[in-house]
C-alpha cells in the first residue's frame, strides 16, 4: 500500500482499524489518514465502541487468591509515584507474627533511581546445607544454558546475602536464581513469585514452588535489560532481591 488513503478506502478498513487488526505499513497509513479526517475518526470510534460491547460477553474466570490485594497495592504505588509523594502507610506494613519478615516494600514499577530499601530487620537466614538442584521452572539447568553475562547477590533488607541471581545468554536468554535454604524457611502452602523487572519498568512474574532453592526462567527481552530480580510472596512483599547495574 502506497500513498495517502482516500476516505472510501479507509471506510473499507475501518473495522480492522477499530479491532486493532492492522499492523505495519497498513496501520501507519490508516493512522495518518485518521489524523486529518474527523469523519473517518468518528466511523472508527463508533465501530470500536461496538467491539467493546462485544467484550461484555467474554467468559469470566477467578484469578489467583489475593489478586485484589495485589492490584490495590500496585495502584497505591503508582499513585504515590505519580504524585511524587511518599507511598501511603496503608497497606505497606505487614502484619506481625510472620516467621520471617520481608526485606522491603511491595514490588512495583519504579524507576531504578526510585528503588527504596526499607530495611525492616529481616531475619531471613541462609541455610548452610548445600544447594539442592531441582527441576527448573521453565528451563532445565543441564540443557546447555548459555554463558553467564552478569551475576548479582540476592540480599535481604538488612543486606544479608542469601543467594545469587545470574543472567545467562542464549536463545532465549535466562535468569537463574539460587537461594540456598529457601525450602527450609517458607511454608509449603504459600505462594511465591520470581519477579524480573526490566529497565523500562515492565515486570514479568513466574510462580515458583516452595520445595526448591533454585529456579531458571527464560527472558522475553534482551539480557542486558534486566534491572532487578526479586522473590515475592503472594501479597507482593519482596523477600530478597538483586539489582543489575544499567
Amino acid at each position, binding site marked *: 500500500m502506497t500513498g495517502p488513503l482516500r476516505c472510501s478506502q479507509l471506510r*473499507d478498513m475501518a*473495522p*480492522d482499524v*477499530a*479491532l*486493532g*487488526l492492522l499492523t505495519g505499513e497498513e496501520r501507519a497509513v490508516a493512522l495518518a489518514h485518521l489524523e486529518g479526517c474527523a469523519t473517518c475518526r*468518528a*466511523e472508527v*470510534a*463508533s*465501530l*470500536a*465502541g*461496538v*467491539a*467493546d*460491547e*462485544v*467484550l*461484555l*460477553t*467474554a*467468559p*469470566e*474466570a*477467578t*484469578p*489467583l487468591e489475593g*489478586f*485484589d490485594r*495485589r*492490584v*490495590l497495592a*500496585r*495502584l497505591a504505588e*503508582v*499513585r504515590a509515584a*505519580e504524585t511524587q509523594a511518599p507511598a501511603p502507610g*496503608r497497606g505497606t506494613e505487614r502484619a506481625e507474627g510472620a516467621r520471617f519478615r520481608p526485606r522491603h516494600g511491595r514490588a512495583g514499577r519504579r524507576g531504578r533511581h526510585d528503588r527504596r530499601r526499607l530495611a525492616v530487620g529481616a531475619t531471613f537466614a541462609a541455610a548452610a546445607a548445600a544447594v539442592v538442584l531441582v527441576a527448573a521452572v521453565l528451563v532445565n539447568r543441564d540443557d546447555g544454558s548459555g554463558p553467564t553475562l552478569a551475576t548479582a547477590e540476592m540480599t535481604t533488607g538488612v543486606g544479608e546475602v542469601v543467594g545469587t541471581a545470574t543472567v545467562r545468554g542464549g536463545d532465549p536468554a535466562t535468569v537463574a536464581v539460587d537461594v540456598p535454604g529457601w525450602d527450609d524457611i517458607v511454608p509449603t502452602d504459600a505462594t511465591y513469585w520470581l519477579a524480573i523487572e526490566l529497565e523500562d519498568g515492565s*515486570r*514479568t*512474574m*513466574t*510462580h515458583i514452588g516452595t520445595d526448591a532453592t533454585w529456579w531458571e526462567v527464560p527472558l*522475553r527481552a534482551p539480557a542486558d535489560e534486566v534491572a532487578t530480580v526479586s522473590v515475592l510472596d503472594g501479597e507482593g512483599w519482596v523477600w530478597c532481591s538483586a539489582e543489575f547495574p544499567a
Partner: protein
Amino acid sequence: MWEVSDEALFAGYASGDPEAAAHFVDRFQRRVYGLALAIVRVPVDAEEVAQETFVRAWRFAASFDERRGSVAAWLLGITRNVALDSVRGRGRRPEPVAQASPDLAVDPLDVGGAIERRADARRVAELMGSLPEPQRQALVAVTLWGMTTREVSEMAGIPQGTVKTRVRLALRKLRDEMGVRLP
C-alpha cells in the same frame, strides 16, 4: 452502600478513594481476568494483564465518556488492548487450554453461564445471536479470543480475506442493530 452503579463506583475509583477502589476491583476482577486469560492463555500472564488493566483504568480515567459506552465495556476494551500487547510482545502463545478453546465449533458465549447473570451481556449476546453463524464466529474469534484474522483463517481453513469480510460485516451489522450513532 456499594449497590451503586458501575459509573458511580468508577468515579470513586478514579478519585483514589480506597474503599471504592476495593469494591471496583472486586466487582470487575472476574470479567477482566476472564478476558485476559481467554486471550493470553497463561494464568501468570493473565494476572499481569489484569493488574495492568486496573492501573491503566485509573491512570486514564479522564478519557472515559459514559455517553460512548459503559464502564464495563471500556474496561474490557483496555483489557483486550493490554492482552494483545502482551501476546504480540511474546511473538507467540501456547495452545489454548480446553476451557478456553477458540475452536470455532464451540460457542464461547455459553461459558460458565455468566452471560445470564449480566444484563449488559445478555443484550449484546442476543444481538450477536442474530448474526449469520460464520460472521458471529469470526467476530468472536478476533474479539474475545484475540486471534488474528490469519490465525482464524488457518484454524477454519478459509481464506484470510473471507475472515476479514465476515468480521467487517458482523461489526457493521451489530452497530446498526445497536443503534450506535456516530459521535
